[in-house]
C-alpha cells in the first residue's frame, strides 16, 4: 500500500501514551511531559547527492532536507530530522502523512522518476513527546549516554541515541525543551522510566 | 617431592616453617625437549602432569611468559560442572569431573574441590524446554542432573527471589549436585608441583617469540631465553592462541574477548551453592572467605587488555540485585577481566595442525577452568600418541571444514 490513511478518525485512535494522561504529582513540576500525538511520521530514504531528489523533497516540504549530520530543518508544522546520510524522519501535521507521502512520490517522479527512494509511513509506530522544565537536563543525564548539555546539544540538533534500555531520537528546541521520538511498543516502559527518573523533580503530564 | 599432610605441617611448625622445600624447581631451559608446552596455565600444567604421569614422557618443558597460572586460571569464577548438552562435550567435561573428584589426593595438593552443586536457572518457557532437553541428555549420558521447579530452587537457595511477578521470574532450574567450585590458584600450583616432581621443567618469564618450522614440521621455539628445540610443540595459550598461530602463518576459528568477573567484600555465609543464569548474564557463588564471586557476560569485542567495559558489570549487577534483592547493600570490592578464546560453537579445539608436531589446545572460551584436568589428560594422550584421545577426537580443527560443529550455544549450553 503506497498511501496511508488520508483522513483520521481520532476518536477510534489510541496514541502510544494514551494510557498515561492524568498523572500529576507536583504543582511546580520540574518535568512537564506532553505527547504531541497523531502527528504524521514518515521515514524518507534517498540520495542527498541527487539534486533532483533534494529539490523535489524541498518543494513538498517547503524546506530543504538537512544534510549535515545531527541537524534538523523546520518549516511550519513540518520538521525533518537527519537520521543518517540517506535517511530522514519527516514529522508533519496530523493526518497529512498520506498526502505528503503521495506528494513526495509524485514530486520525485516528476523529476524523472527513476530515483532510488523510499517513503514509509511510521506514524503509528512512534510518537512525539515533549519534555520541558528545570529538571529535564538532569533527567536526560539519567536516561541517555548522549551529552545533552547545551554546549554540545544546541537548539535544532537531533541525535539518535539510547534512552534507558531503549533507543530514542532527541531534538533540542529553541525554547530549551526537547522532543523525543518514542517507539510505540516501548512507550509503557518509557513512561515507567520517566515516572521513576523524574520523581525528585516532580512530573506533570500536560 | 616431600608429601604434604597434617603431620608434615605439624612437623614443620616445630621448626618455624623454615625447612619447607620449594614446591617446584626453577630450572634453566635445556637445549632440547621431547615436548614443549607453551603456556603455564592450568591446562598447560595439567597436560605436562599427565604426559609424565600417564605416558611416562618427562623430558618436557612448560614455557610461561609470566608466572604459572597467571592467565585465566587466576581470573575465573572457579565453577566446575559437566552438564553440557551434546554427547561430545558432556563426555569431555564429565571425564574432567571424574578427575576432579580425586584430584587433591592424586596431586597431594588440596585444590578444595567443593561439590556444593550448580543451579542453572530458567526464566522463560524456552529456557525451561532447553533445560529439560539438556538434563535428559545428561541423565542418559550418566551425568547427574535434575530439573527443579521454583519451590525446589528456593529450598536450595533460600535467598533467591522466587516472586513470579518480576520481569524474568525464576521458572525453574537444572541442578547438578556433583558440580561446584575449586580453588583456582591451587589447581595450577598442584599440577605444577606434580609435574615438577616427575622432572618436567617449568620455565617462567620465558616468552615464546617464534615457533620454528622446517619443511612443514616443528623443530623448536625461539624464546626470550633463547632457542629451545623440540619436535613436538603444544600451544595451550588460551586467549593468546591466535598470536601463537600467526607465528607459523595459521589462523584459528577463535576470537579473544574480555570476560569480566568481580568479588564483593567478604560477608557472612549467605549462599551455599553456585547459581547461574544465562538469560540475565549473572553467575554467583560465595567463597570460603565470604566473598560473593560473580561472573559477568563476555564483552562483544576482541580485547587482550584483561579488562572490559563498565556497562557489562552494571548489567550483571542489576540482574544480581533482581535475583537476590538483599545483595543490593553488599559492595563490590574488585573487578577484573580475563582474555577468553571464543570459538564459533563454544567448544574447544584439541587438535593437530597442518604443521607436523604442532598441536593446539584452545578455544575453551568462558568455560575452561572446569575442564582443566580433563583437558590436560586427553591432550597429553594426543601429544603422546600423535593421535587424538577418543574424547578429544570430535574437537579437531577439521570440524570447521566438515561442518561438524558441536554447538553448545544452541540450547542452553551455558558455556561458563
Amino acid at each position: 500500500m503506497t498511501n496511508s490513511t488520508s483522513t483520521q478518525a481520532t476518536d477510534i485512535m489510541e496514541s502510544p501514551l494514551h494510557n498515561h494522561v492524568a498523572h500529576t504529582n507536583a504543582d511546580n513540576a520540574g518535568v512537564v511531559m506532553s505527547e504531541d500525538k497523531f502527528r504524521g511520521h514518515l521515514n524518507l530514504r534517498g540520495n542527498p547527492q541527487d539534486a533532483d531528489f533534494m529539490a523535489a523533497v524541498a518543494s513538498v516540504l517547503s524546506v530543504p532536507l538537512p544534510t549535515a549530520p545531527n541537524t534538523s530543518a523546520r518549516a511550519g508544522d513540518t520538521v525533518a530530522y537527519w537520521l543518517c546520510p540517506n535517511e530522514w524522519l519527516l514529522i508533519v501535521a496530523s493526518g497529512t502523512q498520506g498526502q505528503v507521502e503521495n506528494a513526495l512520490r509524485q514530486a520525485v517522479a516528476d523529476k524523472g522518476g527513476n530515483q532510488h527512494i523510499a517513503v514509509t509511513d511510521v506514524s503509528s509506530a512512534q510518537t512525539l513527546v515533549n519534555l520541558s522544565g528545570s529538571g529535564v537536563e538532569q533527567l536526560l543525564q539519567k536516561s541517555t549516554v548522549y551529552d545533552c548539555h547545551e554546549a554540545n546539544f544546541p537548539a535544532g540538533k537531533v541525535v539518535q541515541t539510547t534512552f534507558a534500555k531503549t533507543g530514542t531520537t532527541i531534538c533540542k528546541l529553541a525554547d530549551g525543551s526537547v522532543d523525543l521520538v518514542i517507539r510505540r511498543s516501548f512507550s509503557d516502559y518509557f513512561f515507567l522510566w520517566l515516572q521513576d527518573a523524574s520523581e525528585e523533580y516532580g512530573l506533570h503530564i500536560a | 617431592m616431600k608429601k604434604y599432610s597434617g603431620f608434615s605441617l605439624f612437623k614443620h611448625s616445630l621448626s618455624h616453617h623454615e625447612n619447607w622445600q620449594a614446591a617446584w624447581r626453577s630450572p634453566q631451559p635445556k637445549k632440547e625437549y621431547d615436548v614443549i608446552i607453551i603456556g603455564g596455565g592450568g591446562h598447560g600444567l595439567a597436560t605436562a602432569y599427565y604426559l609424565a604421569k600417564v605416558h611416562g614422557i618427562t623430558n618436557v618443558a612448560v614455557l610461561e611468559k609470566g608466572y604459572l597460572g597467571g592467565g585465566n586460571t587466576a581470573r575465573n569464577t572457579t565453577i566446575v560442572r559437566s552438564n553440557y548438552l551434546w554427547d561430545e562435550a558432556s563426555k569431555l567435561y564429565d571425564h574432567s569431573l571424574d578427575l576432579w573428584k580425586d584430584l587433591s589426593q592424586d596431586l597431594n595438593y588440596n585444590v578444595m574441590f567443593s561439590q556444593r552443586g550448580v543451579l542453572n536457572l530458567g526464566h522463560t518457557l524456552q529456557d525451561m524446554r532447553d533445560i529439560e532437553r539438556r538434563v535428559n541428555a545428561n541423565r542418559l549420558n550418566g551425568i547427574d542432573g535434575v530439573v527443579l521447579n521454583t519451590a525446589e530452587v528456593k529450598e536450595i537457595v533460600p535467598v533467591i527471589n522466587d516472586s513470579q511477578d518480576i520481569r524474568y521470574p525464576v521458572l525453574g532450574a537444572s541442578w547438578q549436585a556433583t558440580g561446584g567450585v575449586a580453588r583456582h590458584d591451587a589447581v595450577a600450583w598442584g599440577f605444577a608441583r606434580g609435574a615438577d616432581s616427575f622432572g618436567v621443567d617449568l620455565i617462567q618469564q620465558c616468552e615464546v617469540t617464534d615457533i620454528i618450522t622446517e619443511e612443514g614440521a616443528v623443530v623448536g621455539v625461539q624464546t626470550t631465553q633463547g632457542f629451545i628445540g623440540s619436535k613436538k610443540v603444544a600451544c595451550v595459550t588460551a586467549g593468546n592462541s591466535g598470536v601463537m598461530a600467526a607465528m607459523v602463518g595459521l589462523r584459528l576459528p577463535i576470537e579473544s574477548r574480555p570476560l569480566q568477573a568481580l568479588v564483593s567484600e567478604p560477608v557472612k555465609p549467605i549462599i551455599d551453592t553456585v547459581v547461574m543464569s544465562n538469560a540475565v548474564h549473572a553467575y554467583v557463588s560465595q567463597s570460603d572467605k565470604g566473598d560473593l564471586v560473580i561472573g559477568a557476560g563476555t564483552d562483544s569485542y576482541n580485547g587482550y587488555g584483561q579488562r572490559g567495559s563498565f556497562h557489562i558489570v552494571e548489567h550483571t549487577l542489576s540482574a544480581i540485585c533482581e535475583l537476590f534483592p538483599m545483595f543490593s547493600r553488599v559492595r563490590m570490592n574488585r573487578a577484573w577481566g580475563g582474555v577468553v578464546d571464543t570459538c564459533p560453537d563454544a567448544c574447544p579445539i584439541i587438535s593437530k595442525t597442518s604443521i607436523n608436531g604442532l598441536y593446539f589446545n584452545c578455544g575453551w572460551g568462558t568455560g575452561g577452568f572446569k575442564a582443566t584436568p580433563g583437558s590436560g589428560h586427553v591432550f597429553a594422550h594426543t601429544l603422546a600418541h600423535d593421535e587424538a584421545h577418543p574424547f578429544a577426537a570430535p574437537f579437531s580443527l577439521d570440524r570447521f571444514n566438515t561442518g561438524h560443529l558441536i554447538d553448545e550455544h544452541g540450547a542452553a549450553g551455558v558455556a561458563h
Partner: protein
Amino acid sequence: MSQVNRLATGGRIDRSKPMSFSFNGKTYHGFDGDTLASALLANGVGIVGRSFKYSRARGILGHGAEEPNALMQLHTGNAAVPNPRATQVELFDGLVSGSTNGWPSVEFDLMEWVGKMGGKMMPPGFYYKTFMAPQKMWMTYEKFIRKAAGFGKLSLAPDPDTYDKINAHCDVIVVGAGPAGLTAALEAGRSGKRVIIVDEQNEFGGTLLANNQTVDGVDAAQWAQQATAQLTDMSNVVVMPRTTAFGYYDHNFVCALERRTDHLGPVSTSGSRQRLHRIRAHQVILATGAIERPLVFGNNDLPGIMLANSVSTYINRYAVVPGNRCVVMTTNDSGYQTALDIQAAGRTVVAVVDSRHAPDGRLVQQAKAAGIEIMTGHGVTEAQGSKRVVGAIVAPLDEAGDTLTGPAKTLSCDLIAVAGGWSPVVHLSCHTGSRPVWQEDIAGFVPGPSIQNQHLAGAITGDYKLSQALNAGVQAGAAAVGVESAHVFDCGDESEGAAQALYLIPHTKPVSRAPKQFVDFQNDVTAAGIELAAREGFQSIEHVKRYTAMGFGTDQGKTGNVNGMAIVAKTLNKSIAETGTTIFRPAYTPVTFGALGGRDVGVLLDPARHTAMHPWHVANGAKFENVGQWKRPWYFPQQGETMQQTLNRECLAVRNSVGILDASTLGKIDIQGKDAREFLNRVYTNAWSKLAPGKCRYGLMLKEDGMIFDDGVTACLSDQHFLMTTTSGGAAAVLGWLELWHQTEWPELEVYFTSVTDQWATCSFAGPNSRKVLEKLCTDVDLSAEAMKFMDYREGTVAGIKARIFRISFTGELSFEVNVPADQGHYMWQKLMEAGEEFGITPYGTESMHVLRAEKGFIIAGQDTDGSMTPQDCLMGWAVSKTKSFSFLGERSFSRPDTARADRKQLVGLKPIDPTVVIPEGSQIVMDPNQPIPMDMMGHVTSSYWSECLGHGIAMGTVKGGCDRMGQTVYCPQADGRVLAAQICSPVFYDPKGDHHHD
C-alpha cells in the same frame, strides 16, 4: 566529659552539635563533623575488630580509605551495611555500629585462643597441604572453615533504599580536592570549560584540613574553604563532595560513587541513597594524593599503633588525641610533624625514634628545639601489650637499617605513631592498563606512562611539599584546558631531609621466629609468611600475593603492598623495581551493588514491550509469556479452567469456528527498491523473482553456515515494494542482518529497509468462520475463495480503516491477518470481537497457537530449530531453490561433508503409542530403552502437546536419519522411570492435504 581523648578546642568538629551513637551495644558521644573512627578514638575505644585468621585484637590504624582494621557492622534490620570503614563513616545522631567479628565480644574473643594455639599450624598455604584425606571429608572440613568466613552480615530483607545513575560529560574531571586538585580545578574552571571535581570526603581540602601551614597568607583549611567557595560559584564547575572516583576506564571514562544520604541516617528519606556518576571527560586530572605506610615490626598490629599522619589528622581535624604517651617511629621528616602536633595537643612525646642516623630537616630542628627526645639510628623492633600497646622495644640500627647494632631498651607508651614513608595513590592510573613505576628516590610507585588524556598533580607524583602540590595543580589545570599559567604558590615549605627506604625493622630473632610482623593487617599476612612463600617457590609478586592473600582485603593493600613487595625483593635479593607490582583493579574503594545496578531493577530491569491491544488482553485475564522483550498473551483462562482446558477450548474454537490471535509482535520490515527482489533472492533460500504483487511467500533465512536463523512470510505489495515478517524475537537481528549485507557486500543493490514492526497492529483470526467475520467488516475486497486465494494479499477497508489483509495461515485453517496502523489496533481488535461474537470468536494465546501449528507440522524457529538445523533437516527442502543463479546465504555450506550427511538429525512427527500420553518437551529419544547408560541418543522432542481435535498427544522431534525411519518406534526414557514410546510419522498430523486452509 566522657570523650577522654577530645581536645577542648580546635578541629573542624561542631561542638554545638553533640551526637550520640552506639558501638557494640554501648552508647557514646561525639560531634557533628566526626567520623565514626574519630568519635570512637575520642571515647578511648581501642579494639574495634578482630583479624580474619588469627582473631587478633585490632584498633584503628588510619583515618581514611586505607584503613584495614576498623570494618564495621553498620545499622540494623534491612538497613544493615556490612564492612564500611569507621574512618569513612560520618557520624550522625543515633548511629548504630558494631564490630564484624569476635565472640562472645570483640574485647574478649574465644577465637583468639584458636589463633594463638593453632596459629603456628596456619602458615600461608596450609589449606593446600592438608584436609586432603579422605577426599570426601573436604566438604565437612569446609563447613567449619566457612563458619569463620566473612566480616559483616547481610540482612535477609530486601534493600529499602534506591540508587540511581547520572551520565556526565565534561572537558576536565579533577579527582581529589586536596591542594593540587583545588588549584587544578580553579585553573581549569577559569577557562570557562566544563569541569567536574570530586572528592571522597564530606569536605573539600584533603590534607589542607589538617595542616598547620598557610596558603597565600591564610590558614590552609580556610584557604581550602575559600577555594571551594570560588569553585562552587563557577557555573561551569560541578563540585561533588562525598563522591569517590572508584574506577578509571578506557578513553577517559571515570566512574564515581556519590553518597547522598549515608551521612544523614541508615535509610534515605528522600531520593536515592547513592548515585553512580558515569563521567566521560576529555581530560582527567588525578590529584589523588598519597597514603602513609606503616612499618613492619613485631606485634605492629596492636591497638594503639597508628599511622603518624593519621594521628596528626585526628588531632588537627577532629580534635582527638588517640593516646597520652606517644612514641613516634619514623623513617622520614613527616613523623616529626606528628610529634610536634602531639606536643602541641598537650600530650607526651616519649621519643621520636628515627631509623636515620643524621636527620637534619627543618622539622627535625623544630622538634629538637621543642625539647622532644630524638633517638636517631634506632628502630622499634617490637611492640608490647596484649589488647593495647603498653611499650615499644627500641634498638639501634646500622645505617642501612638491616641489622641491630646494640642492646634494646623499652619505652613505655600507649601510642606508637608510625611514619614509614608514603605511597602515591596510583590506583586509578592503573585501571586502564598502565603499570606503575618504582621510583627509588621517593621509595614509592608513581603512575606509569598512559595513553589516556591524563594529568597528574600533587602527591601522586611523589612530591609531598604543599607548594609543589598547589603549583602542580595549577599547571595540570592549565594544561588540561590548553592554556598557560604563571600562578605560583609559595608556602615556605620546610626543607626536608631525605627519607630512608625502610620497610621491615629487624628483630633480634629471625623473621620466622620473631613475634608476628604484620604486612597486610586485614588478611593477617606477616613478613614470615612472605618469606615462606618465597622459600616455597612463590617468587613472582603475583604468586606471593595469591599464596599469602596479601592485598586481597577490602583495603586492597593500600598500606601493606609496598612493604610486602620490599620484603619479597629483599628475600629474593632483587630490587623492588625488579620484583614489580601487582596491578590495581577497580574499585578504588568498594562500591555498593545497588548503585551499580541503578534503576535497572524490578519492572525496569528490561523493557517490556506491549502491543496496541495489550490493555484488552490484561482486561480479559490473559496470562502472559515473555517472547524476547515482548509480553504476549500465553492463554486466556476462563473462570475455573485448568490451563489444558483453556487450550482445548481455544484450539477447538479455531478448528470449529473462529479464534483470534494478536500477532502484532512479529517483526515487520518494509523493503523498497528496484533490487528488492534480488536482495530477497540472496538472503532467502527460495526464489523471489516471480512473486507477483498481491502474493505472499514463506521464506527461510540461513546464516552462512547453512543453519536456519529466522523465517517468515514476505508479501509483495507492489513490484518494488515488499513487506517481510520475522519471528517476534528475531526482528532486530534480522534487520541488522539485512543492513549488514547491504552495507558491506552489496551496496550496489538499490534497496532500503525500514522497520515497521511498531507501525502495524496485526489481528490474526483463523477458523472456518473467519471469512464470515471479515466479510461483516470489509466490503471493498472480494474475499471469496476464488478471488482471494491462500497466500494472497489485498488492501481494503476493514471496519472503516484502511487495512492490509493477508490470507495466510499458521493454523492450517482458513485464516486472515488484518494489519492496521497500530493507533487503531485496539479498535480493530474490538470490532473483530464484536463481528465474531455470533460465531463465538475466541481469543487465543501463544500456547494454543503452538498447538495448532504443531498439528500442522509448522516449525517455530528457535524452538524446533537450535542453530544446528538446515532446511533439509527440517524436511523443508521444498523451500530451498536449486536454480537461483546467485549463491544465496548459507547455500555453500550444504555441501560440506557433515552437512550433506543423510543420517543427520531430521525433524519428524512423533505419535505417542499410548494416545493419552503427552511426551514432555525436551525428552531425549532412543531406539532401545533397555540399553545401558550412556545411551545412544537419536534426537529429542522439540514440541509436544495434547491435541484436543485429534484426541491424542502429538509431538515433533529430531531423529537421526528420521526421514528413513517413518513408522519406526522410538522411546523417551523419563526421569521418573517411565519410558514413553512413540511412532515416527509425518509431522503433519492435521489435514495433511491442506484442504482447510485452501478452502
